């Protein structure tokens, strides 16, 4: 596993869990609060439809391993989802207690307790690979090592099939490893989950990119289709989008996901001064923007402001995340559009020049002004990895550049041997959506092999 490659004194470890692991007593007390609703709204609000009341009842009765099994049945990455899901707008948001004006059940924290406790080192495995497979053993390959691929590969491995994951980076786990805010999930925990999925029988190969041709560290789509019975595309998204304005290229300006990845995996405590005491501007109004802003604020930035071209109601970032950010000192500068980066004679970034925007988010001439800053993170979207479609005949892209699938119930592409899921089909949603896609694709494939 790649875990040992991670530097131990990583900067991300300076940010502690905002929702630490429950103790057994805390979990039991919280589980006892659950009403055990019939046809529970929390289940419907979960993209993987975990049987939440059942797993909570199992915690309450002391059957923690059974609880974890209930979670994994529907969501193999139940551990990371427990920690990274925006539960406030999913399961917990629909808890009947919420409507009653009472605190919702802390479903995410209970799910973390069950999955983390049951998969702790030294425990007997909670999930066992099937040995008596009715259908002949098949081989599948996954492109990209993120949550969608891991779910797809894991569910098929559990049914006794051979599943291989090709990850171009040095670490698998996708955004769980490279992109999640450290106070939710640290990279080493994400990698532990990858290792756990490997333990189910999945083979994870890092440093291998799937593309047009074969070679060292490269494998072609053609070869995958020849070698494997099915291929799953779970490549996620590409590089951070750029503004395309003067002064953008140069030190001090980063893509948000690029910066977060470096902070999580490469920066050590010694790199803290890159942020601490600095004036940070984040461009964007989505969840990545809020994440990077909060991370900078928590790492000791002197000022953190988000520049967004519209107002608060239009922000795509979650209100609960923004509210958390405000408490940590994140400021929102609404209705502004960057027009240029200002650098001194030495090329050092000194300010971002912005214009005020009108009701249609268009810049208003004559309103330009400068916001002094030392560092800018651009969180205005990511490019699509369109190359993959070219490598796999029959796979099509839509106008946005997303891989086209028949529906998310099967996640099958135009090539019946090829499935796809996660951010590469939806343009960027939650980890839990990616897991749902991978699982659904695995189920569709198993049903096909079973002749159903």
């Amino acid at each position: 596993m790649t875990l040992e490659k991670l530097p131990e004194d990583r900067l991300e470890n300076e940010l502690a869990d905002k929702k630490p692991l429950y103790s057994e007593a805390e979990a039991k007390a919280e589980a006892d609060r659950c009403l055990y609703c019939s046809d529970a709204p929390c289940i419907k609000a979960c993209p993987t439809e975990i049987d939440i009341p059942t797993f909570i009842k199992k915690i309450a009765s002391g059957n923690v391993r059974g609880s974890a099994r209930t979670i994994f049945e529907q969501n193999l990455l139940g551990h990371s989802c427990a920690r990274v899901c925006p539960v406030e707008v999913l399961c917990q948001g629909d808890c009947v207690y919420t409507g009653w004006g009472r605190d919702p059940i802390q479903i995410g924290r209970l799910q973390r307790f069950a999955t983390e406790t049951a998969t702790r080192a030294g425990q007997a495995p909670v999930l066992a690979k099937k040995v008596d497979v009715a259908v002949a053993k098949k081989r599948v390959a996954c492109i990209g090592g993120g949550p969608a691929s891991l779910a797809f590969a894991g569910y098929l491995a559990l049914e006794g099939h051979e599943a291989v994951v090709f990850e171009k980076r040095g670490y698998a786990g996708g955004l769980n490893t490279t992109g999640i805010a450290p106070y939710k999930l640290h990279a080493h925990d994400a990698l532990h989950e990858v290792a756990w999925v490997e333990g189910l029988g999945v083979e994870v190969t890092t440093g291998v990119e799937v593309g047009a041709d074969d070679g060292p560290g490269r494998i072609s789509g053609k070869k995958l289709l020849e070698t494997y019975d099915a291929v799953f595309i779970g490549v996620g998204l590409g590089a951070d989008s750029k503004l395309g304005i003067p002064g953008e290229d140069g030190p001090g300006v980063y893509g948000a996901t690029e910066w977060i990845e470096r902070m999580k995996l490469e920066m050590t405590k010694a790199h803290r001064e890159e942020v601490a005491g600095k004036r940070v501007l984040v461009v964007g109004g989505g969840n990545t923007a809020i994440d990077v802003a909060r991370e900078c604020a928590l790492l000791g930035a002197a000022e953190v402001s988000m520049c967004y071209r519209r107002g608060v109601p239009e922000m795509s970032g979650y209100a609960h995340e923004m509210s958390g950010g405000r408490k940590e000192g994140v400021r929102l500068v609404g209705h502004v559009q960057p027009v240029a980066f200002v650098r001194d004679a030495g090329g050092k970034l000194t300010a971002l020049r912005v214009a005020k925007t009108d009701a249609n988010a268009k810049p208003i001439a004559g309103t330009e002004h400068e916001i002094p800053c030392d560092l800018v993170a651009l969180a205005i979207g990511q490019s699509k990895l369109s190359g993959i479609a070219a490598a796999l005949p029959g796979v099509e892209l839509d106008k946005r550049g997303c891989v086209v699938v028949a529906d998310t119930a099967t996640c099958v592409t135009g090539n019946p041997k090829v499935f796809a899921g996660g951010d590469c089909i939806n343009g960027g949603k939650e980890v839990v959506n990616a897991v749902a896609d991978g699982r659904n694709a695995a189920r569709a494939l198993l049903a096909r092999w079973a002749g159903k």
Partner: protein
Amino acid sequence: MADLSIEFAGIKSPNPFWLASAPPANSGEQVMRAFDAGWGGAVWKTLGDPIMNVTSRFGGVDYDGRKLMGLNNIELITDRPLETNLREIREVKKRYPKNVVIASLMTETKNDWKVLIRKCEDAGVDGLELNFGCPHGMCERGMGSSVGQEPKLLQEITSWVKEFAKTPVLVKLTPNTGDIVEAGTAAVAGKADGIALINTIKSIVGVDLDRLVPLPRVGKASTNGGYCGPAVKPIALHMVAALAREPGMIPISGIGGIATWRDAAEFIALGATSVQVCTAVMHYGYRIVRDMIDGLSEYLDAQGMKSVNELRGRAVGGYQEWGDLDLSYKLVASIDAKSCIGCQLCVTACHDGAHQCIFTGADDRPRPPHAHAHGPAKAPKPLPLGAIAGDRVPWIDEPECVGCNLCQLVCPVPGCISMVEVPNGKSETWNDRVKQGRDKLPGGIHEDA
């Protein structure tokens, strides 16, 4: 404020709240603190030959995170020297002359009873309570519930005591018996002045699943204990009510799961004159009596009753045999859409545990084959939309609702489901039907049915 003072078989007490004979009434220091908190009386931890106890002694039953729905103990009577207890009783009575101190007693021979009674009365007790109820340990030595389970023995020992006693004598009964009325009438026949019930219920509180030994564990084994606490209240209420209905019954001191003024009021309404409390004090301390006093007083005021004595026995007549209940009385459940939170526990409870008459959504539902009203269940129009639970608010198939209460009982929101009477102007009991020859018993089942 209503008058809470009572007189129990001649014993005057400032209020009906007494500590039961148990650990909270083990010593003078405790009893005096209890009286300071407001308790009207205390029945001292049972006196007799001091015994040796074991550890551990208690086991609890929790429910959905709430502690001590039930408590079980294997502790015996007092383990302190008799002279120490008597000295402390004397001290308590001297300092708290208006509060009631009753000595609970348990011994074997007639002479032992005689000596024990004299010593206690010399110490100044207001009355005596004969412990014929303890179902663990002492009963193996021929005392406690082994007396309470034998009406003749119970009557005989009660008569001995009455020969020697100058103060009122209460007999404390065990619920571990087939017919509580038999035990109660034996106490009356033995000339007891009052009855106290229930003592604890013979029980095994649980099993240690790691060691596979019952609880509470004493080394490698356990034994049966006595069960008490909120879980036993319904059993106690039934037994108190059964005795209260008996003609010529003597005053009753109600015991069993009393934790609040409301519990106390229920016992008093079913015929108790005083009530005794143990588990709730063991759980929360003497301070609970403040709300008991205050709450009972508020309740009596609201009911327009000037004294707690006006409440006593008021619900006794509300008990009827099943055969005299009105078969025509009809209730149907009604859900308040505004307060419904959409948990739909009522839906599952009704479908799996009752009569399949609560539904969700607008579709009319086919009724199960055993339905009382045939045809589809018609959803009300309009459905309760706009409530906090939106379209998760269930609806009642009223013609099919048997009015069983289950939905109301499982609903977590107080007041959300109510049972509404549907008057039909009729009244008929099963006994009426039998009398009129319209209902048969026994032999109503036909071979070819």
